[in-house]
């Protein structure tokens, strides 16, 4: 027999028939028992068994707890109720900390938003400033040597200003109230309540 044949030929398993019979028997039992546990009779029987267990166990619970409590009190040791109270307090502290964490996250987010607004403002004002510095004080005659040296001073800052303005407008509009041209600035006294 070649190696390949030896590999593919299945060895006869003497237990195979036994396993088949066993599985068939278990299948039958399984179906019967699934049906059995799904009856009112089983529910009633299991309920009665549980009730019996509880009826036997319940009377011992309170005296045992009382005895344990007295012993712990005499030994000046905390009881399980004390631990439960402590755990409740810890959970409350955790919740307060979580609330603080949430507030801090909100503050951090607001701060990040403000920073990005400030950065956008700085970016918008910087090209304008540099443009103003770079702009010629006196008009230069076209065709002169100076005019040839300056590479379009006004064009770049203007476009940069427009882009920055576009970026800034929605952010600024959200935060600053609109001010009309004739309105006087309101001076707020920090000591007096504004509300």
């Amino acid at each position, binding site marked *: 027999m070649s190696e390949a044949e030896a590999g593919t030929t299945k060895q006869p398993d003497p237990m195979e028939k036994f396993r088949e019979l066993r599985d068939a028997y278990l299948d039958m039992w399984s179906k019967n028992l*699934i049906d059995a546990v799904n009856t009112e009779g089983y529910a009633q029987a299991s*309920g009665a068994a549980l009730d019996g267990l509880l009826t036997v166990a319940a009377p011992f619970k309170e005296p045992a707890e009382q005895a344990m409590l007295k012993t712990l009190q005499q030994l000046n040791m905390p009881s399980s109720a004390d631990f439960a109270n402590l755990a409740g307090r810890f959970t409350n502290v955790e919740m307060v900390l979580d609330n603080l964490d949430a507030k801090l996250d909100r503050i951090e987010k607001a701060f990040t938003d403000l920073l990005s607004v400030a950065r956008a403002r700085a970016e918008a004002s910087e090209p304008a400033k540099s443009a103003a510095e770079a702009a010629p004080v006196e008009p230069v005659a076209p065709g002169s040597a100076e005019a040839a040296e300056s590479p379009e001073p006004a064009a770049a800052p203007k476009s940069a200003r427009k882009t920055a303005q576009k970026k800034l407008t929605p952010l600024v509009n959200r935060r600053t109230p609109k001010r009309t041209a004739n309105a006087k600035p309101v001076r707020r006294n920090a000591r007096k309540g504004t509300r």
Partner: protein
Amino acid sequence: MAQAPATMDPTATIEERLKTVTRVMTSKAPIAQTPKELVWTLNKAKLYRYVPVVPEGERHRVPLLLIFALMNRPYILDLRPGNSFVEYLVGQGYDVYLLDWGAPGPEDKHLKFDDYTLEYMPRAIRKIKVLSGVEEVSVLGWCIGAILTTIYAALRPDDGLRNLILLTAPLDFSDKAHLTFGRWTDEKYFDVDKVLALFGNMPPEMIDYGAKALKPVENYIGNYLKLWDNVDNPQVVESWHAMNTWVRDNIPMAGGAFRQLIVDLYRNDRLMKGELMIRGERVDLSRLRANLLTVIAEGDHITPPCQSESIVSKVGSQDKEVYRVRGGHIGIMTGNGAHKRTWPHIEQWLAARSK
């Protein structure tokens, strides 16, 4: 080099198998391996951010928050390398967050859906918005996590929730005939107040028993036979080990929330009827406007499909889709077909809505 004997000693084989079985049943598998960082905590809840592997410019814009049930660990979403939904999403370029509710202690027995939906979730989502720098978020809720996300989405529709994905969401409790849990927790047989008076929170052992008793043969016998039959296959063994680690790692459910689940939902179906009150606010599903994908597992015995279907007709979302997939409650996200069917569908749906 020593050659392996032609025929193994049957005693040695059985001994070897028993060693493997003992190892996987008594140890914890390495799970939840996708790198993550803790970014927020409140009480027992922790918000994790998974470390992105895709460059920022190529990532999806809207972050995704994963919310699992209250009574199980959420690392089922990041079970093990190669079989992790979280790893898959991170690889696809999502900014993924996971809200782990943690295990409630006796001091948390009063916690209700009100606290989870109006204290924990809004705070976690705010943190995600700050960290990601995006004002929108997608949320995926699974099982009871889907109940919480639905309530939140209906109560806070203007909180930036853009996409809502519900996996096997138990929202409609009107079809009593198909709800085995509903039958067991009927007020005739189950005194929820008596249980909570004794235990405070709903004990994990009782929740685990309830889930397993729905399919007793599969969970108590078939599961172990599957391991025994495949004990020579390392891939199956490691997968079984990881799943068993998760199944055994149950946590209690806060008493207040469990009471609401039983009384308000299982018994009175208040969410679908529009009568559920959360901190004095009525949960009106028509206010839910986020894009909605609800994934239904056709073979789900914990949340039968009838519980997840009707949400689509109740919400106010314009963009909504129901995706049905073969599989069980957990299997649709961790089974063999998950990475071929469920994950890609969720990813594609989300990708189109995360720009």
